């Protein structure tokens, strides 16, 4: 049973058991435009909620990707380094950035659910 939550920085995080997958939302990918470079964190790196976790650059600008929750990186999506356009093509699927273990579940519970995020995006 997996559950997806969202941040006001337009990241999504999907929790499957003990592992979480993080990426940027379709809204974020569309705002950024064509992604040309992605830097993902190395496995084993400890992240704190709200801290810098990855970098995404579009033809327009560079943006930081923040850790939605605290945890330890278990994998970075190395495929994005060769094919950064996956972030635009499938932001909430193949375009994932990194996976986390040891996720802080309290922090996860405080993030927006799909309905709240949709409302948030509408308000922008």
């Amino acid at each position: 049973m997996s559950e997806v939550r969202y941040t006001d920085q337009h990241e999504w995080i999907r929790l499957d058991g003990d592992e979480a997958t993080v990426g940027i939302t379709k809204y974020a990918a569309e705002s950024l435009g064509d992604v040309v470079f992605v830097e993902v964190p190395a496995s084993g790196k400890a992240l704190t909620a709200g801290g810098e976790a990855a970098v995404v650059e579009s033809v327009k600008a560079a943006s930081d990707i923040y850790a939605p929750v605290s945890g330890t990186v278990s994998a970075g999506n190395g495929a994005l380094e060769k094919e950064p356009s996956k972030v635009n093509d499938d932001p909430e699927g193949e375009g994932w950035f990194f996976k986390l273990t040891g996720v802080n579940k309290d922090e996860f519970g405080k993030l927006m659910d799909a309905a709240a995020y949709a409302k948030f995006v509408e308000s922008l």
Partner: protein
Amino acid sequence: MNAATDTLLRTPLYALHLELGGKMVPFAGYEMPVQYPAGILKEHLHTRAQAGLFDVSHMGQGFLSGDGNALERVTPADVAGLKPGMQRYGLLLTPDGTIRDDFMFSRLAGEDDLYLVVNAGTKEGDFAYINETLKGTAQVTPRFDRALLALQGPAAEAVLARHAPGVAALTFMQVIRTTVAGAPAIVSRTGYTGEDGYEISIEGADAEKVARALLGEAEVLPIGLGARDSLRLEAGLCLYGHDIDDSINPAEAGLLWSIGKRRKEARDFPDGERIMAGGFAKKLVGILPEGRAPAREGAEIADKSGRVIGKVTSGGFGPSLNAPLAMGYVETAFAAPGTPLDLMVRGKPLPAAVAPMPFVPHKYRRSKI
């Protein structure tokens, strides 16, 4: 910048940009499309493959009447030697010999006035400065109400020739009065992308009719300011306010080619002796980062020992180059192509090397004589 008011101006094509799905952003006091639904990457590649239409009506157009050659008092370009039917690139210098703006000037066949196009963000100040300096000799009449379109790319000639008589025969930097889609126009074979193409000056009231006629051709897509920037950067063309400004002189910017031979010999322009003597501490160079990460404007440039030797003035990703690229000033000792450098990106050194410009070859339609 037109900073006196926070009301943004609109070009005559504003409604068309919205209709085409343009994403509007503030630029030099105007609301301009940064991109259309195709996106910057596709717009860039389409311009190099076929043809792109740009609205550059925010640029400052005007006509200089009186003794046009008096313009040589504010530019080191050869104005007197410009033949009828030709356009030329020039620098507008401050009294100290630094770059106040860069601009295009044309001598239309059979006309006394020179036709000028200056940058959007500097147009008010430029024309006021020219009028003040040339008072009693020559005067610019601004025509900020006119529209300016650029049609750029390998299909530009075929497309424009369907709507405008006489344009196929033009070569690079030639300019004529003709009609485009029935509207009276000044058409020059120039541009800011490195591709063959044209700039089309028309009355504001005719802009939408002309734009729709060109966009109706299968080869043409509308192109926003985002791709305009990546195209000009690949072509190694300076952007005023970024790569050149009033702290930089023509020698540092590598723009001595824009100074006429007669002017170089006479050195009869602000700070001419010193500019022609050379020996400046810094120089504008092209830079290719290794790997895929772009370095943006403002990134520090360091030598291999970590000492800061300059700063990136334009940087990003080149869709045709399929790689990151940059321009910046470095200490002159580091200006030779191939010189290894580091660009400081997010606190880390990104290996790079000085590279010759343009990054992507120019495809201008040069005259064969």
